[in-house]
């Protein structure tokens, strides 16, 4: 009886979840007989089983609900009121089930209140419509839906399967004989599919998983032993054992996989109730519900997801009136989506509501002492939005019954952190909010690279390892040092390096990294190199959670037992990336700004700057992202040709440019160079000494009149000249572009800059900033249109003409076509200035047309255009 009861409770709970979802669907689509049939069948099953198990309260409730639903089947309209009543009934059933689970019996109390309401509703509907239609509807399995007291209702498969298979069989046969009409046929189908699955308790699966984990470990141990013995007769059978283990592991992992839809099941009901309660119209869209992930992971994200959907419904979406006033459709949209990407699953919760209230978050962050008042103004919006993940942070002005009960996004973040996931927030004021969660598919077993540093071994998850590079003193892969920062030249790119020894304080002689290995690691879109002393092999490791005493160490995601029986720590590349501090973060932001969809505002974020000396003791700096490479060449290789310094570099002649007259090209020894490339062309700036790479707010405070200097900024507390690379490029190649110093302008106007070349974006942004504009950079016209459509205000747009996908002309046409942006001045930038192009530009509505290299012209045009707007 116990087992029976337990099974009943589990099964019924699951059925009820389905009923929940189906009812909400039914309410929206009342003519769909299939949905109704499904609901009806589920409730009927519950009722039948209750009778059989002697649960009178449940049975009476189910019966009353069924009767009401019978009315719907007969064609009565499904009013929201009636559906609510049934949902309430289902909630009551759930409550009873809960106590049934704990006490093994129904709780005291009566449900007359509900039953009476249900009966009244039946009468009311009955008075209005086809009352006796029930039998006429003629579902064969419902000989009498009302058979109240006595057990096995014929046709009730669930009841039968317990009562005895033989009986069930005969019943099915009887039904077939009676010429089973459609619903009966369906039942048979259901029965068939039931036979193909069996119910196993989660504990059993968990145990199985643990055993497989142990098996994997043991196998690893054996492999380790055999590895030490060259000739071993165990080799072949062990190989087979290894393969079988791998397959077994995969199989067991599969049993733990569940569609994410399971975690979403309750959401339609929640959203429906919320929309009633809050008087909002909400549509819930779910994509990728069949995306599978480990059930352990699933359990942990269930609550966060529910919380986020509640938040969206309660705080995110506006009331229908507000939405109408904002020119949006009355129905607010909450979109849940899930999909696989690499070894991760990406879940997104997005709404088209009002977005985060940046000002309020700022105020709250300052009030809670998370950030100082002066700093908060410097933070980019995205950074401010991240404060919502801080403990105890809630901006809800009023506490509703729905959310704002102290459970905040910090809890959500904690849950996601726990499973090694990351969460990111993107909000556009007035247009909506979206959370992106990235979590590993499974927590149990991963492939990892075993490395050694400072005498300790560590595991680095293979997923984030891109490649291994051997560091050598000379040659292609050389580690270079810029003060305390080390970088690796790898295929024309500078890769920031972090040494594990250094990171973990294991360093005795930090210097000796040449000869070590570099694990090139990728986190998100950011690459960096982890310097280790040695690399052993890859191993399938069983990730074991860290002790709670060690969980605060961000560098580790867990620990594991290796084949040789020792415990090692698993490195969390995310944590290592964080250890880079803002360096990685800001580069990430820069990468995202140049390649991702919604362009981030460039101003305000920190920028990686290369600090160097040239000509004077005062430090100079240039944005690191502009530099292609740092080189140190033998001064004797510098040739003088046509009055200019040149060096043979990768098969081409590369011109060398000096900053100012005081910088002399060295006659001997090593000459440090900053190499800039665009496409196939390279030039180098000659410097005296490379000092450091720093991350700082690139805030040019004093603009400069000196050619080649954008202005002065405080970098690491020292006044530093920010070098205008744009000035020097045409000195090397005249057609690169020509430059005259920017005009200083003090009105902070916002500029939308569209160019598909990151080089020009990087180039022009500081120039425009130096001229007093706040710049938002977009890497494509479509991104720019998205930003405009979201209602971001801009004073003027500057766009490149030649761009893939959508060119500048098309962009201008699209901007003009939208009444909201029709008046936005647009300045076109192009390297091709032909009369035809200018004419076409006029037609599509460019206000001005500036050659790409004519930056004075651009500043003048900007001044004119923003001035015009101001006057208007």
């Amino acid at each position, binding site marked *: 009886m116990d087992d029976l009861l337990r099974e009943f409770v589990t099964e019924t709970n699951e059925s009820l979840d389905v009923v929940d979802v189906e009812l909400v669907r039914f309410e929206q689509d009342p003519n769909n007989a299939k949905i109704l049939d499904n609901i009806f069948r589920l409730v009927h099953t519950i009722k039948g089983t209750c009778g059989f198990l002697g649960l009178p309260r449940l049975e009476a409730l189910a019966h009353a609900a069924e009767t009401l639903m019978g009315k719907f089947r007969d064609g009565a309209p499904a009013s929201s009121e009636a559906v609510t009543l049934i949902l309430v009934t289902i909630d009551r059933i759930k409550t009873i089930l809960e106590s049934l689970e704990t006490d093994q019996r129904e709780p005291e109390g009566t449900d007359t209140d509900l039953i009476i309401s249900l009966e009244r509703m039946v009468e009311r509907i009955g008075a209005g419509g086809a009352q006796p239609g029930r039998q006429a509807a003629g579902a064969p399995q419902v000989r009498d839906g009302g058979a109240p007291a006595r057990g096995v209702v014929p046709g009730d498969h669930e009841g039968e399967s317990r009562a005895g298979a033989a009986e069930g069989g005969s019943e099915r046969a009887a039904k077939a004989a009676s010429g089973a009409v459609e619903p009966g046929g369906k039942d048979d189908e259901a029965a068939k599919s039931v036979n193909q699955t069996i119910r196993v308790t989660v504990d059993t699966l968990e145990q199985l998983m643990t055993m497989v984990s142990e098996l994997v*470990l043991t196998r690893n141990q054996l492999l380790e032993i055999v590895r030490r013995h060259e000739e071993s007769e165990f080799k072949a059978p062990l190989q087979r054992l290894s393969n079988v283990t791998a397959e077994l592991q995969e199989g067991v992992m599969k049993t733990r996989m569940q569609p994410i839809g399971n975690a979403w099941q309750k959401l339609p009901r929640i959203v429906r109730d919320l929309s009633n309660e809050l008087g909002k119209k909400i549509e819930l869209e779910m994509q990728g519900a069949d995306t599978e992930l480990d059930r352990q992971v699933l359990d942990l994200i269930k609550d966060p997801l529910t919380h986020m959907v509640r938040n969206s419904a309660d705080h995110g979406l506006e009331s229908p009136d507000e939405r109408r006033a904002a020119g949006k459709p009355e129905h607010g949209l909450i979109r849940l989506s899930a999909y696989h990407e690499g070894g991760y699953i990406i879940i997104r919760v997005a709404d088209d509501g009002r977005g985060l209230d940046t000002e309020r978050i700022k105020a709250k962050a300052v009030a809670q002492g998370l950030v100082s008042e002066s700093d908060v103004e410097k933070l980019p919006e995205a950074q401010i939005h991240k404060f919502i993940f801080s403990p105890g942070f809630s901006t809800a002005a009023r506490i509703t019954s729905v959310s704002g009960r102290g459970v905040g996004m910090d809890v959500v973040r904690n849950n996601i952190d726990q499973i090694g996931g990351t969460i990111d927030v993107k909000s556009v004021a007035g247009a909506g909010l979206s959370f992106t969660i990235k979590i590993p598919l499974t927590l149990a077993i991963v492939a990892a690279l075993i490395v050694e540093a400072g005498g*300790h071994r560590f595991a680095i998850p293979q997923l984030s390892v891109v490649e291994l590079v051997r560091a050598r003193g000379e040659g292609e892969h050389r580690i270079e040092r810029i003060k305390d920062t080390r970088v690796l030249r790898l295929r024309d790119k500078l890769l920031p390096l972090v040494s594990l020894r250094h990171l973990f*304080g294991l360093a005795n002689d930090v210097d000796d990294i040449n000869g070590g290995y570099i694990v090139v690691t990728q986190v998100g879109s950011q690459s960096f190199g982890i310097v280790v002393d040695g690399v052993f092999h890859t191993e399938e490791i069983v990730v074991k959670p860290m*002790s709670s*005493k*060690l969980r*605060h160490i961000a*560098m580790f995601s867990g620990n594991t037992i290796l084949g040789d029986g*020792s415990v090692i*720590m698993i490195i969390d590349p995310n944590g290592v990336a964080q250890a880079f501090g803002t360096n990685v973060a800001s580069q990430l932001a820069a990468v995202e700004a140049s390649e991702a969809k919604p362009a981030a505002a460039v101003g305000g974020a920190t920028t990686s700057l290369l600090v160097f000396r040239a000509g004077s003791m005062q430090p100079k700096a240039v944005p690191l992202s502009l530099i292609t490479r740092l080189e140190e060449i033998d001064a004797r290789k510098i040739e003088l040709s046509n009055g200019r310094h040149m060096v043979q570099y990768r098969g081409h002649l590369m011109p060398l440019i000096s900053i100012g007259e005081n910088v002399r090209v060295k006659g001997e020894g090593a000459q440090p160079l900053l190499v800039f490339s665009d496409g196939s062309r390279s030039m180098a700036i000659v410097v005296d000494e490379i000092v450091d790479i720093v991350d700082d707010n690139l805030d040019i405070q004093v603009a400069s009149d000196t050619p080649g200097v954008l202005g002065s900024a405080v970098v690491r507390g020292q006044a530093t000249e920010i070098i205008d690379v744009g000035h020097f490029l045409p000195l090397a190649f005249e057609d690169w572009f020509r430059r005259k110093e920017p005009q200083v302008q003090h009105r902070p106007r916002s500029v939308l800059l569209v160019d598909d070349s990151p080089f020009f974006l990087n180039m022009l942004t500081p120039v425009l900033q130096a001229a007093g504009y706040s710049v938002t950079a977009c890497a494509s016209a479509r991104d720019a249109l998205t930003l405009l459509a979201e209602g971001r205000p801009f004073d003027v747009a500057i766009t490149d003409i030649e761009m893939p996908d959508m060119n500048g002309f098309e962009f201008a046409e699209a901007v003009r076509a939208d009444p909201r942006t029709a008046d936005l001045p647009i300045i076109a930038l192009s390297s091709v200035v032909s009369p035809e192009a200018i004419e076409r530009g006029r037609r599509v509505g460019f206000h001005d047309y500036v050659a790409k290299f004519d930056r004075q012209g651009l500043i003048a045009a900007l001044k004119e255009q923003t001035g015009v707007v101001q006057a208007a």
Partner: protein
Amino acid sequence: MIQRADHNLNEYVTALIGGQLFGLPILRVQDVFAPERLTAVPLSPPEVAGVLNLRGRIVTLIDMRCRLGLGSRDDGQQSMAIGVESRGESYGLLIDSVGEVLKLDNRAWEPNPSNLDARLASVSTGIYRLDSQLLMVLDVDRVLDITVKVAA
């Protein structure tokens, strides 16, 4: 706690740490082992001596001398560990040596003297007067309550 229960006799596993005798409620003690192949954990709190594999389980070893502020050991002897469990996690308490299991009468129990070192007082639930020396009763949960400074 167990020693407050109505039973007259409580059983303790005794341990010597820095010359002082400590007692751990026997019901909390899983096993006693000699730690081998200890893996140090970089960046861990000083109290954590490391982690090790004990029959397939990962055990976090707590250096009791450090935890109790008793100075580090320099006699070169092999330390022992007492295995305990807390909230589903396995810990080993690293001690100098393990003693016998004692059955002690409730009546010999006394609360901590008020002038006891604060660090010791925070993990002890009282003292037994033995014939030759004093035995300090350790509260396992409080011993494991290591304040973790969350790195910024």
